[in-house]
């Protein structure tokens, strides 16, 4: 999925343009950065409500080329600066994470599917 389609599906605006054309293969929505690091694959869109610079760091580490911030929460300047520096595209949608993810799913973007159930040992 192209970023234009993400913008259209979630009524988002582009805050930091990507340095090259991006074709997303899947998406991951989470506010827990360890989850993101665990699940992301390259060419994955990161959907998150966490607007601090660590969201961009996490995307960079996991080679996720684009981040979609949700619930209309405008990221602080240091986040945008880091995104510019790292070459990570940043978009902002007015929808909640649940709805943004739903809209993207309907538009054809998929996640990573089922995971094994992990039980905590006490």
């Amino acid at each position: 999925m192209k970023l234009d389609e993400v913008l259209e599906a979630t009524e988002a605006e582009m805050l930091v343009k990507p340095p090259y054309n991006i074709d997303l293969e899947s998406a991951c929505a989470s506010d827990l950065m360890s989850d993101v690091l665990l699940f992301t694959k390259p060419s994955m869109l990161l959907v998150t409500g966490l607007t601090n610079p660590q969201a961009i760091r996490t995307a960079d580490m996991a080679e996720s080329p684009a981040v979609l911030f949700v619930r209309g929460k405008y990221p602080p300047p240091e986040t945008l600066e880091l995104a510019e520096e790292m070459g990570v595209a940043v978009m902002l949608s007015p929808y909640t994470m649940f709805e943004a993810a739903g809209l993207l799913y309907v538009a054809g973007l998929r996640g990573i599917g089922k995971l094994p159930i992990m039980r905590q040992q006490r």
Partner: protein
Amino acid sequence: MKREFALLGFMGSGGALSKIHELIREMQVSRVMTANVFTLSPDATMKELEDLLREHHISGVPVIENQELVGIVSIEDLIHALENQQLDTPIHEYMTSKGLITAHAQEPVMEALRRFEHTGIGRMPVLDARGKLVGIITRGDITIALLGALQELYTEAEAMQQRPQHFFDALESENTSLLLRYRIEKGNFARGGDASAKIKRALLRIGASPQLARRVAIATYEAEINLIIHANDGGLILADIQPTEITIVAQDSGPGIADVDLARQPGYSTATPEVREMGFGAGMGLTNIERCTDRMSLWSAVGVGSRLQMTFKVSPEETGETSDDD
């Protein structure tokens, strides 16, 4: 691979050709056109046209009346006027005004190119969404933009050639090892990930595969965040990079982990609500690290400190020993 074949090799990998295609399809007319366009009024004379064309080395001008585009007049029209010795005639007698062919600022260059082909005209006034004149485009503008883009692609292909083909290709010795050290400050989330990002770039620069660099970066990032969250006076990250193995050590001098086995349980965390608010402290750090490493050992003593050692094996394809494709 020889240098001259850099671009060809690049094209072969599915890069350049699709990029050129993308370029023509997606580049907008507004990026290619000349924006500061000279115009004339329909009452200006053909002599004035001649002066303008000569002075600015251009071949045609849009004709504007009451801020509306009413026609276009070109060097061919000027030749007709010269043949008829009518240089004092007003432009509106020679200009093209009916069936005026225009381009739109937001349309792809490809569309403009098609219109040039179908009509055989030399230039098109460019209009914005409200029909206002914003520029002029010629076939030459498109050629120049495409050549510029090709040049960029070529430079990119050349840069790719200069990158080492295999891990540690650029450095030769009996026993090569690269040691990188980073001091991590406690609580400094703003710089969190700095060391990991630097290690990742260093690995890529010396020829590590993106998969290897990614594995190392994710594990190191988790370890770095752990130091920022927990370590009393911050900590140290050491990266020992060797051709067949990468070892990253994250260590601190306290507080130490009381129950290492418990800390390694997925979901277990002692992080504060503030840390969780930043997206960390989900108790998945060590699980994540374990998944990314080939070997991991965690030693800790309360009051003394912790030492996390992560080992990543460089696969044989990456060392360049088993494959010899160039």
